[in-house]
């Protein structure tokens, strides 16, 4: 079993601040992390590898199988994220980096990553499963996973919470997919791309051995020229159909909010005032949901 996991290094969005005057992002001092959703994908990949490596070695008489390759596209510093993934237990890491990838939207990113995955397949054997997180916390689009699947022309399985069964002989995989109203049970052929939902597993703590190995292992670095695509206009800004034209802070409401509560009023006083305000300004509201019996 060969599993590829796509990860992304993202700024820790909970710590991003906007400059109050210029409306620009203040990135200084904001730590970067592996996109949290990608860690669920990585853990699921490691779990499946561990689960099936033994079985495969026994049945296929091929101890070389059972590898997890992590891949990321980004600036050279994204290598840190890959290094971290290696310490968690990934076997190989590939960094896709080139100035010509800059400005990629989700379509161009999907294309570049799918080229990298195709090359990983040529080099290390075709992947059975490709994992991504359900979305990134900086872009939040959830589009790159489906994009990669389409570019590679393989099945996409989005919002998966668990892989329940893998049948190597029939090359099929069973997954649980989370929908708005419940859980869908799906059987799919492999290879496939899975976008992992959050919450059902926790990334392992890598062992000291893994950390030492991670520190020693080299990270493969590929640029545009390595991906074997003649039409370089498919990458970066030129390969991106969408264009961001304007970035702005949302305007405040025309009417500034009524301010209640000052330092010299007691909490109880403020609370009473607030409740009175709500009751007087929203008579419908006070007669409606607020008076639900059993509340």
């Amino acid at each position, binding site marked *: 079993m060969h599993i590829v996991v796509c990860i992304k290094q993202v700024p820790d969005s909970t710590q991003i601040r906007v400059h109050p005057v210029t409306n620009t992002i203040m990135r200084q001092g904001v730590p970067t992390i592996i996109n949290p959703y990608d860690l669920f994908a990585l853990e699921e990949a490691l779990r499946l590898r561990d689960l099936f490596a033994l079985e495969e070695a026994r049945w296929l008489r091929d101890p070389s199988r059972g590898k997890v390759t992590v891949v990321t596209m980004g600036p050279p510093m994204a290598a840190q994220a890959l290094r971290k993934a290696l310490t968690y237990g990934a076997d190989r890491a590939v960094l896709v980096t080139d100035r010509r990838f800059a400005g990629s939207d989700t379509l161009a990113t999907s294309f570049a990553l799918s080229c990298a995955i195709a090359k990983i397949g040529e080099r290390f054997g075709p992947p059975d499963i490709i994992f991504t997180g359900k979305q990134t916390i900086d872009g939040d689009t959830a589009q790159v996973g489906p994009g990669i699947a389409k570019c590679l022309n393989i099945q996409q399985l989005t919002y998966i919470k668990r892989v329940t069964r893998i049948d190597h002989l029939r090359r099929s995989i069973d997954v649980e997919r989370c929908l708005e109203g419940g859980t869908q049970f799906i059987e*799919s052929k492999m290879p496939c791309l899975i976008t992992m939902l959050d919450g059902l597993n926790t990334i392992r703590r890598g062992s000291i051995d893994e950390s030492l190995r991670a520190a020693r292992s080299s990270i493969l670095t590929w640029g545009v020229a390595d991906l074997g695509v003649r039409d370089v206009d498919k990458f970066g800004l030129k390969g991106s159909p*969408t264009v961001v034209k304007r970035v702005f802070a949302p305007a405040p409401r025309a009417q500034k*909010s009524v301010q209640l509560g000052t330092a010299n009023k007691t909490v109880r006083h403020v609370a009473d005032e607030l409740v009175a305000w709500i009751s007087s300004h929203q008579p419908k509201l006070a007669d409606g949901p607020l008076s639900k019996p059993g509340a």
Partner: protein
Amino acid sequence: MMMKLPTQFQDHRHVWVYIELEESQVNPVSIELLGEGRKLADKLGAQLAGVVMGPPKGGGGGPALEEAFAYGADLVYLVESQLLTNYRNEPYTKALTDLVTIHKPEILLLGATTLGRDLAGSVATSLKTGLTADCTELNIDSDGSLAATRPTFGGSLLCTIYTLSSRPQMATVRPRVMSMPERQTKPVGRIIRHELTMVEEEIATKVIGFLADNRSDRPDLAKADVVVGCGLGIGAAINLKHVGALARTIGGEMGCTRPLVQKGWASSFRQIGQTGVTIRPKLYIAAGISGAVQHRVGAEGADLIIAINNDPHAPIFDFAHVGVVADAHRLLPALTKAFSRLMPLRERQLCELRVKAYE
């Protein structure tokens, strides 16, 4: 905005809305999108079309067609096939991609549901066109291109995105972000049928089963009339009990911001905002929430927003109706008490009403 549209896209016209079906019922987000699509179509002087896909029912699409016309569609593209019984990516992507290739819409809108996002991502990649996810505002620019606005950078700013060099211009919108249009009684209009050219053997997935959630233990934030939300300003996980107590007292649901979910203080079902649930309650009490854009877009549809925050410069005061500069974890218990002083009276009144009704 200058148009550099290649010639092969120049005959793309009209606005399409993908009508999502949930057990043959129209998902409300599709109706919200029909309302929004109608406005865009009118600005472009174009027609609004709905796209309905599903299993054959004899009679043609059933209530979905009626709904599409009642909420403003001029025509409906209909694809019926046994292969479309359950949502599966391949047949749905094939059907929608083929429809777009043949009938050439200028704009294609989908709901940002799990189904909509799954479908939109692969359709946009197949068509090599732009897709803007989770838009909060859609507009037509002076030159006729779609200006799609969405939060960016983890929710600190908004950005407006254009698709200049390809068609259709695609966007998804989350449920309850756009308001519900009014229903009109209109007869079913023009229907254009399309045959799905695919066989079961070409599809790699099978749906083996479905287990509906036990909804009783899950909050339904999206439909709640009253929501009490809290953010990191609440201080500690233990203070969440004050939020829960207030929510219970006023018959509402408890919500929270993403950092709380990431810290493991609350379940992700309770997350309000761009990546969580969009709420449209009558009353929203936001306690200890600074008000990042991502939270704002999920909550600003509330009729009345009360913000409690000890930072007088918190962005939430820019969109709240009433602001209280105070520590949320101190004010919340006081509010609970103040409301419960009010409650017994109301309940007494209710009882009297019931007694009168029986007399």
